[in-house]
């Protein structure tokens, strides 16, 4: 996976925090042995805590 990419078009319509909230909290969630357990519920809390702490600085970037 490359790290340079086109910005998703809709990312410009919402804050970064909202985008992260959406992709972490919505969508089909799979559980069980077939997937890696990073898809576990704690993801939501870890991710949002980190984003909340840093969203201001991230969004100030050009």
């Amino acid at each position, binding site marked *: 996976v490359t790290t340079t990419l086109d910005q998703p078009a809709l990312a410009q319509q919402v804050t970064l925090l909202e985008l992260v909230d959406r992709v972490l909290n919505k969508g089909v969630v799979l559980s069980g042995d*077939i997937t890696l357990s990073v898809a576990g519920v704690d993801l939501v809390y870890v991710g949002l805590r980190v984003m909340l702490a840093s969203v201001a600085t991230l969004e100030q970037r050009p």
Partner: protein
Amino acid sequence: MSAAAEAGASNGVAWYVYGIVEAGSEAPAGAGVEVSTVTAGRVSALVSRVPLEEYGEDAVRARLEDPAWLAGAAHVHEAVLEAALRSGAVVPFRLLTIFRDCDGLHDFLATRGDDLRALLERVRGREEVGVKAFVDRAVLDEAVAADTPALRELDAEIASAQIGRAYLLQRRREQALDQEAGRRIAELAGVLHGRLRDAAEAGVANAVQSHEASGRAEEMVLNGAYLVPSGDDRFERELDALREEYRAVGVTFERTGPWPPYNFVPRELGEA
């Protein structure tokens, strides 16, 4: 199955699944990552082969603490789903859904194909539109103070009261104003959501966001998502009508989309 997918499980590689599309769909290009499809029956998964070094369980746990990495992952996920959405129906999976190997993914598609197919049917030809409504509290408070008899009486009392008593009355007024404004915001949220949902095929009212999350000074009263048939303008006309009707009381609307239908797929397969 694409050539990349056919290579199967190899050491140090896992399979990141963005979501599901109909079998035969092209893997989306232009999202900045190499995406291929893995197909079983009538459904295909949109996948990227990812290094376990970066996407293994421990690695992801560590990287989740890095906001720049998390933001990048969210952007890639969204970009791939948006690109796929331009050519057909998509069932979005949650960020960081990673299969251990391609055989497991193939089995999953084969055994849950009917459920996935049903979800694709549900969202095909429809768009998820986000609508947020905000209220300017200064404008709302003024309207509430003007047309709530109890508050008008308090204002009159305050105007003629001694300074000590005026202070107590002022506190009481603030509480009464807050309570009434809160009641009206809840009522407003219900009315706005109800009308938008009635003009759409389905609607979800999500928790309203803090000022940090919304990036707005006004108070969010509605954070809705609506499933709208493509090309049907009934929803847009209702939204325009609401903008007109509620402008005078300090309500503004923010529309986003079309989104991958995040809000209209069940959290777990097999749920309604």
